[in-house]
């Protein structure tokens, strides 16, 4: 039976309310969904067998993603559309399976291949002027971003388990921009900050932390903004 095993790489979203469950919760969610859908999946061996599903780097809690990936080790080849249909039936509506493609069984893991992430941060969404203490107009933001990107020294303070330390993120941050929408009917513009960051298991700094450090805003305040990971890809 061994030679029938296949690896199916699935792209999915994590949206809306589901942004508030953790990566581990997501893993459990998939394990149970796969069981309910009766997907012929391989199990790990040992004391506590679990369905073999591999993931890319954990999405931070509180973030929406339109581009997540998971690898399923199946015991037999299923039609991709049928897989998506049957598993989707068992998933909550705030999660969509976008596509599924078979990859080589021995292809490198998701964590070792996907290393570039694009983020969109919507400033002031739902927080119109009176509401949002951070909305002093966009030019201060634009200035801080430009200043940071033009500065060869890109160190930020990073809070890790070991404490607070200065970290150089010049190798992580590829691009950061502020895009302003045209003024809407009320004369107020929505603004979007886009970020392109490299991700790896060695330097794992959350985009919220990075943006907070660059704009000199507390992380507590930055939680008001809506962060979305729009793409996970290979650099």
């Amino acid at each position, binding site marked *: 039976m061994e030679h029938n095993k296949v690896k199916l790489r699935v792209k999915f979203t994590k949206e809306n309310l589901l942004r508030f*469950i953790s990566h581990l919760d997501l893993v459990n969610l998939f394990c149970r969904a796969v*069981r309910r859908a009766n997907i012929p999946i391989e199990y790990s061996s040992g004391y506590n067998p679990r369905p073999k599903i591999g993931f890319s780097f954990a999405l931070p809690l509180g973030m929406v993603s339109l581009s997540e990936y998971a690898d399923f080790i199946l015991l037999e080849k299923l039609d991709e559309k049928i897989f998506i249909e049957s598993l989707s039936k068992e998933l909550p509506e705030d999660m969509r399976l976008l596509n599924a493609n078979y990859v080589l069984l021995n292809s490198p893991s998701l964590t070792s291949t996907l290393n570039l992430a694009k983020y969109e941060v919507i400033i002031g969404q739902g927080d119109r002027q009176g509401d949002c203490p951070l909305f002093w107009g966009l030019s201060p933001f634009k200035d801080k971003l430009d200043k940071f990107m033009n500065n060869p020294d890109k160190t930020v303070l990073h809070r890790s388990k070991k404490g607070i330390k200065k970290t150089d993120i010049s190798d992580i941050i590829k691009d950061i921009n502020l895009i302003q929408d045209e003024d809407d009917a009320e004369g107020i513009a929505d603004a979007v900050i886009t970020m392109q960051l490299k991700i790896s298991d060695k330097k794992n700094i959350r985009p919220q932390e990075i943006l907070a450090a660059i704009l000199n805003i507390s992380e507590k305040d930055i*939680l008001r903004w809506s962060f979305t990971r729009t793409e996970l890809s290979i650099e």
Partner: protein
Amino acid sequence: MLNNKQKELKYSMMKIFPYVTKPGRYLGNEINSVHKENADVKIVLAFPDVYEVGMSYLGFKILYEIINSRTDSLAERVYAPWPDMLEELNKNNVPLFSLESWRPLRDFDIVGFTLQSELCFTNVVLMLEYSGIPVLAKDRNEKEPLIIAGGSCCFNPEPLAEIFDFFVIGEGEEIINEIIDVYKKNKDKNRVELLKSFVRIEGIYVPSFYDVIKKRIVSDFENAPASIKPPVPYINIVHDRFTLEIMRGCRWNCRFCMSGNTCKPVRARSINTLIEIGKLGIKNTGYDEISLLSLNTADYKNAENLISEFTKTFHKDNVSISLPSLRIDLFSKEIACSIRKLRKPGLTFAPETGTDRLRKAINKNISNDELFNIADVVFDSGWNLIKLYFMVGLPTETFSDVEKIVHLIKKIKDIGKAKNRNVQIHLGVAAFIPKPHTYFQFHSMDSLSNLKEKINFLIKKLGENVKWHNPEQSFIEAVFARGDRKLSACLISAYKLGCKFDAWNEYFNFELWQKAFKECSIDPLFYLRERKSDEVLPWSIIKLS
């Protein structure tokens, strides 16, 4: 589909979620949660503790499915928000809302609490306050929902008699349908007439109409509705597995045990029915573990057969079986054999005492020698971990009985050593509470200082493998378990002083409780004293048979 008001609340809450721990507690929308727009009778099942604890409660899973299976009723859920969320709700002026529809509790017809522990009572007050619902029954009018309670603490309902409109005594599967039927027929009547209409239902205690109440049981347990499609949480909860009851009641008459008495008679489900329930449950939830519940698993006729059928049916799909309760004296090589397939790290037993004499006094008739034989079998069967539960403060107990617990543990460790094994013995110690409807109900509770001395002794002698219940928490439990109506006002005082989440060490505050007792001019020791045999007990209005 949510209406505008509900959508507004949802979006406000989404702005709050980044600021609280485990926002997963408040999302709802779990697989198997039921969303109905409307129904003649709208019930919200309220668990007075946090989501992770409340979601494990089997009783609510059963009721949720029964109520939602009717076209004329709907059931939603609400759990006590954690204090950091309470702060946010306060700050943003948001009332407590149900998970399924973001609906304030006020908008339901009936709010049904379950009372599993006296330490959750302050959270009942908390949840009513956060819902803008008057806490005292007499202050509620036709615009407010009926506030009712069920669960094991209802076997002495008096301490909460001024708060709840009525109590359900005993098992709920059949009575819930009667409650819905009666409510439908009488909901347009005024409050007093509405409550009066429930008096006729056997097993319901309406405090404003004093009467003797007989507990309800489900006689056809084999065919009673089991939970087969419970909501599956997104976050980790306590006992995160599919749960089904194999048996109710217990044939042993341990003198301290309230459950044994209140859950009689013994009723069991057949293996075939249990397997069917298990299959449906796994299909609907996707869980990888089934827990078989009863008060004493080994008492199930053909327990070995039950275990082997379950392992045969479910192991091939990588679903494991868990058996929480096992009584020592029925443990044998045969049971050990069948359990071995269950992949348990260790086994749990409850000797309760260190000496044969004291064990006999509480009618748990097993000797230390038998216990040693069992330890022998357990170690021979391959397990290295035994968990043992004990109580301190039992009637006729002397300090020497407590000292003998240490000897017992040492002897069991020696048995393991003789087999060249590094065995671990973990202990659980709790203070004995003389509970209502037990042989010891007239007995007094041991003093707080004695209890502390005994527990500290065991911790000193046995070290970090001792898990112990704070005797001050047991003190409060006991006061309310043995209390009367005067305690309702005291409970509200305690809440107003800041008591909440009393089952949690980080929130339990004994000084505040003592302040509350003082404020209400109540001596809590009055409830813990010995009762005379001709004394009328507050819980004597409840008849078990």
